[in-house]
């Protein structure tokens, strides 16, 4: 793939991660630049989720460095967090808040994205009629789409997603894949694990298999 010329984006060098003194992975290096997608593959327990949590800065790697635009992400702290959005296994949707309230909160905690209002974001994931519905009354697939709508309301450049297609139907998957394509086309970055094949047409994709 084309090398990223300058030191922009995410640069991982010699990352290692251990769990219960078993090496999940070591000496893992990659660069993720504008418009690129990182797709993580590997068996269950191969460390995909751990790697994503390291990329989020929630977990310290046991070895190696992680730089964003040339700066250590743990030194950047909240400044780095303003650049990322994460949807994990626990999708962070508050059951007792409405869809709109959930998004308003996500927007307030990050750097608001002027391109998407709350309504526009809900519209984009086809939840426009559900703004005032409590999240607990949405179906599993709708809740997932709500969680993914969070990606739109902040100005995050790097989306970090752990199994984003869980409980989505084929139409839901189409919606989310078009979100990804738009994000990459606009110079965004993506780091994703998925059992479901991610079709990103002609996007610049880096594949890493943690099982090998």
């Amino acid at each position, binding site marked *: 793939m084309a090398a990223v010329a300058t030191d922009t984006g995410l640069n991982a060098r010699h990352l290692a991660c251990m769990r219960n003194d078993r090496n999940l992975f070591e000496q893992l290096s990659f660069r993720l630049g504008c418009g690129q997608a990182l797709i993580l593959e590997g068996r269950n327990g191969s460390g995909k989720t751990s790697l994503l949590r390291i990329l989020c800065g*929630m977990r310290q790697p046991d070895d190696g460095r992680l730089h964003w635009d040339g700066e250590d992400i743990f030194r950047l702290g909240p400044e780095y967090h303003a650049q990322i959005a994460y949807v994990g296994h626990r999708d*962070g949707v508050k059951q007792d808040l409405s869809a709109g309230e959930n998004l308003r909160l996500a927007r307030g905690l*990050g*750097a608001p994205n002027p391109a998407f209002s709350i309504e526009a974001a809900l519209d984009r994931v086809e939840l426009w009629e559900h703004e005032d519905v409590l999240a607990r009354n949405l179906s599993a697939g709708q809740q997932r789409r709500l969680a993914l709508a969070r990606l739109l309301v902040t100005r995050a450049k790097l989306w970090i997603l752990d199994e984003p297609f869980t409980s989505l139907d084929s139409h839901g998957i189409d919606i989310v894949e078009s979100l990804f394509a738009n994000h990459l086309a606009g110079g965004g970055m993506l780091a994703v694990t998925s059992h479901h094949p991610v079709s990103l047409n002609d996007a610049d994709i880096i594949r890493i298999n943690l099982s090998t």
Partner: protein
Amino acid sequence: MSTASLNRAFALLLWRDLLLAFRRRTELLNPLLFFVLVTTLFPLGIGADPALLRAVAPGIIWVAALLAAMLSLDSVFRSDFEDGSLEQFLISAQPLSVLVLAKVIAHWLITGLPLLIVAPLLGLLLHMSGASIAALLLTLLLGTPVLSLIGAIGVALTVGLRRGGVILSLLVLPLYIPVLIFAADAVATSGAGLPITAHLSLLAALLVLSVSLSPLATAAALKISLS
């Protein structure tokens, strides 16, 4: 991040936690009932002699408040941990300690402040004088936020544990001792008709200290628990 966005995030989170508590308002009563129940157990256990009750009332009410505060602690971070909201706070663009402070303040408004409403009633049940009840309210006002702030550190350390409850009490109760001593003694002193400015100043000092230090420790503990 600018101060404006920091203030907005703080207010937003405070509003969110109060709203969530309001939507589950039946649960609000539980710590309060516990507080009343524990206090009424004492006369049944030690006898109903008014002089005896008046003498031990400050200690009883404050120990009951301590236990009620501790039992309600679990709700500070538990549900946010389970649904993944806590992870979102961790990687939000705002400093975690500020968000923690907003959550602890909301928690105190929900579980600490209501104790003040029933405390006078308990004071009457235990034959406390008017001056003592006034002192009790003042000490609760200054002391219960300290309990929430210190307790938050303990919850943050145990939030990932399946059975964190017992350990939490082991971690938190020894740290509550200074509050208990100053507060209960203030109530007893005022019952004897003596001034309690020194006690109140000490409690206020504890409050200032814990407001400034505890969010930092809680944020650090959350980062470790979630790693």
